[in-house]
C-alpha cells in the first residue's frame, strides 16, 4: 500500500440530520476511527474504508479521525530476511502515525505500575512489560529498604527479599568505633602483657606475656587501650588518670570528676590543653573503687602511647608503650632497640613532660592486664589476658579487688587492613582534631552503662 498524503482528520461544524460522512484517507487493518461531537467522545457509529455511518444523526460540531496503534507488531530477527510486505507495512504505519501527529492527535501508549517489595513491573499496552528488580552491588536497580532506629540484628533471619536495606540511625555508640572508625578497627592482633604487683610495692618489674614477635606490618594502626586504676586514699579531686599518646599526641582520654569518660585533644609538647577541665576535673577516685579509662589513639607514625596513673609526690605508676607500626613489634619487655615496647611502673622524677598528670594518693599497683575493646556492634567488651590464677576465672576478680589495689589495663593492637588515619589527625591540628573528637566521641552515659555491664560480666565490681 502507498499511503496517500492526507491529514486523517475531518470536522463538520453544526451538523444535523446527516448520518453518513465520507473520508478519503488510508486505513491499516489495525487503524481505527474515533469521533467526538462538541468535544465529547461518541461511539454510536460504524465505518468502512470510505465512510462513517452513525446510528443516529449527530447534532453539533462533529470531528472524526484515524488512530493507528503505536507499536511494533513483529521484531526483525537476526540473520532473517526482510520481507517486502513487512517492511512496507512498517513504513506505512510510521507514515500514518506521522500524519496523525500532524493532525493534532496525541500518541498513546498506556503504562501501568505493579509494585511489590522486591520489584516493580511496568506494564505497557503497546509492548512487552518491563520488570525492574532490586539494586545490588553489581547492577543498578530499585532501592527497597527503610530508615529506622530499630534495625534487625546482624545475622538474623528475615522474610525481606535479598538486597533489602536498613539504614539505622541513633546514638553514635559506633563513633568511638566510628570516629576511630575512620581509621578502622581491623583485626585484633594481640593484647597487652600482664603485670602485677601488690600493695606493698609500688614498683613493678618489666615482664612479658608474649615471647614471640607479632607481625605488624601495616603503616597505620589504631589501638584501643583501657585501664582500670585504683588509687589508694585519694585526698583531693585534682587527680589525673588518663591515657594519652606522646608529645605529638592528638588527643587524650580521661575520666572526669563525674566518672564519665572524656576525650580531649591536647598537645603536650606545647603544654596546651584545650579544655581546662582536664586539669581541674581529673578522675576523683575513691578508695576501693575501680575506675575505667579507655583510650583509642592513632598510633600511625610510630607514636608512643602512655598510660599514666601518677602520684608525683611518691612513687608512681608510669606505663609506657612504644609502638612502631612499620616493623614487627616484638612483644618483649626489653626495649633496647626502640622497636619494642616496655611497660612497668617507674618512679617519676618530677620533670617529665607529663606535668598535668598528678594525683595525691599512692597508686596501689598493677595487678593484671586485660583489654577493653568493642565488638562489631561497638558494644564495650572486656577481656582479661592473664591466664594465671586470677583472670582465668573471672569470678575470682570479685574478692580480689577488695583487698588489693589493682589496675586492669592493656593495649590492644589492631592491625589495620589498609585503611588510613583521618587526615585531620595527621595534620597535627589540635583544633581540628578536637572538633572531630568532640563531635564524634562516644556518649558518656551510654559508655558508662556498658562499662558497668562489662565489669559485671567479668565479675568485677566496685563492691
Amino acid at each position, binding site marked *: 500500500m502507498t499511503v496517500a498524503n492526507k491529514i486523517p482528520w475531518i470536522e463538520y461544524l453544526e451538523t444535523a440530520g446527516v448520518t453518513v460522512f465520507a473520508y478519503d484517507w488510508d486505513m491499516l487493518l489495525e487503524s481505527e476511527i474515533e469521533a467526538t461531537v462538541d468535544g465529547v467522545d461518541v461511539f454510536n457509529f460504524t465505518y468502512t474504508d470510505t465512510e462513517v455511518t452513525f446510528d443516529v444523526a449527530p447534532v453539533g460540531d462533529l470531528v472524526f479521525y484515524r488512530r493507528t496503534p503505536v507499536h511494533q507488531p513483529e521484531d526483525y530477527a537476526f540473520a532473517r530476511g526482510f520481507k517486502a510486505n513487512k517492511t512496507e507495512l512498517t513504513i506505512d504505519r510510521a507514515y500514518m502515525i506521522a500524519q496523525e501527529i500532524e493532525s493534532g492527535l496525541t500518541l498513546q501508549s498506556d503504562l501501568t505500575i505493579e509494585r511489590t517489595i522486591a520489584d516493580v513491573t511496568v506494564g505497557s499496552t503497546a509492548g512487552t512489560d518491563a520488570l525492574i528488580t532490586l539494586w545490588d552491588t553489581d547492577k543498578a536497580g530499585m532501592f527497597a529498604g527503610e530508615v529506622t532506629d530499630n534495625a534487625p540484628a546482624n545475622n538474623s533471619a*528475615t522474610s525481606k527479599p535479598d538486597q533489602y536495606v536498613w539504614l539505622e540511625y541513633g546514638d553514635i555508640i559506633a563513633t568511638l568505633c566510628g570516629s576511630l572508625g575512620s581509621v578502622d578497627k581491623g583485626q585484633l592482633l594481640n593484647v597487652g602483657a600482664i603485670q602485677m604487683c601488690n600493695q606493698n610495692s609500688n614498683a613493678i618489674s618489666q615482664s612479658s606475656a608474649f615471647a614471640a614477635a607479632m607481625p605488624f606490618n601495616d603503616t597505620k594502626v589504631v589501638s584501643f587501650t583501657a585501664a582500670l586504676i585504683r588509687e589508694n586514699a585519694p585526698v583531693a579531686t585534682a587527680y589525673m588518670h588518663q591515657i594519652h599518646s606522646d608529645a605529638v599526641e592528638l588527643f587524650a582520654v580521661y575520666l572526669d570528676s563525674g566518672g564519665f569518660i572524656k576525650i580531649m585533644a591536647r598537645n603536650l609538647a606545647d603544654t596546651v590543653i584545650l579544655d581546662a577541665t582536664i586539669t581541674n576535673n581529673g578522675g576523683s577516685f575513691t578508695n576501693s573503687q575501680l575506675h575505667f579509662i579507655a583510650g583509642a589513639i592513632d598510633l600511625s607514625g610510630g607514636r608512643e602511647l602512655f598510660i599514666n596513673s601518677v602520684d608525683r609526690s611518691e612513687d608512681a605508676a608510669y606505663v609506657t608503650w612504644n609502638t612502631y607500626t612499620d616493623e614487627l613489634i616484638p612483644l618483649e619487655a626489653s626495649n633496647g632497640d626502640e622497636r619494642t615496647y616496655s611497660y612497668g611502673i617507674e618512679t617519676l622524677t618530677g620533670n617529665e613532660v607529663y606535668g598535668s598528670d598528678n594525683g595525691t594518693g599512692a597508686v596501689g599497683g598493677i595487678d593484671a592486664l586485660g583489654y577493653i575493646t568493642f565488638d562489631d556492634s561497638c558494644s564495650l567488651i572486656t577481656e582479661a589476658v592473664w591466664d594465671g590464677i586470677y583472670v582465668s576465672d573471672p569470678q575470682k576478680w570479685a574478692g580480689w579487688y577488695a583487698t588489693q589495689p589493682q589496675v586492669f589495663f592493656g593495649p590492644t593492637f589492631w592491625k589495620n587492613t589498609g585503611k588510613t588515619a583521618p587526615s585531620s589527625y595527621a595534620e597535627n591540628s589540635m583544633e581540628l582534631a578536637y572538633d572531630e573528637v568532640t563531635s564524634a566521641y562516644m556518649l558518656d552515659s551510654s559508655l558508662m552503662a556498658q562499662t558497668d555491664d562489662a565489669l559485671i560480666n567479668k565479675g568485677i565490681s566496685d563492691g
Partner: protein
Amino acid sequence: MSRKIAVAQGGIVKDATTVRVSVGGVVKNAKRVLVVKNGIVRQVWPKG
C-alpha cells in the same frame, strides 16, 4: 576491615567513613547499615 559501603569520588571508588541518613528532613548519623543476603540480615557498615 573491609567496608562494603563505598562511594565514587572523581571516578575513584572510596570507602565511606560516614554514612548519614535523612529522617523527616533532618540529617542524622547512621548507626548501622544492613542488607539482606540469602534471607539473612547482614550488617555491612560498620563492620569489624
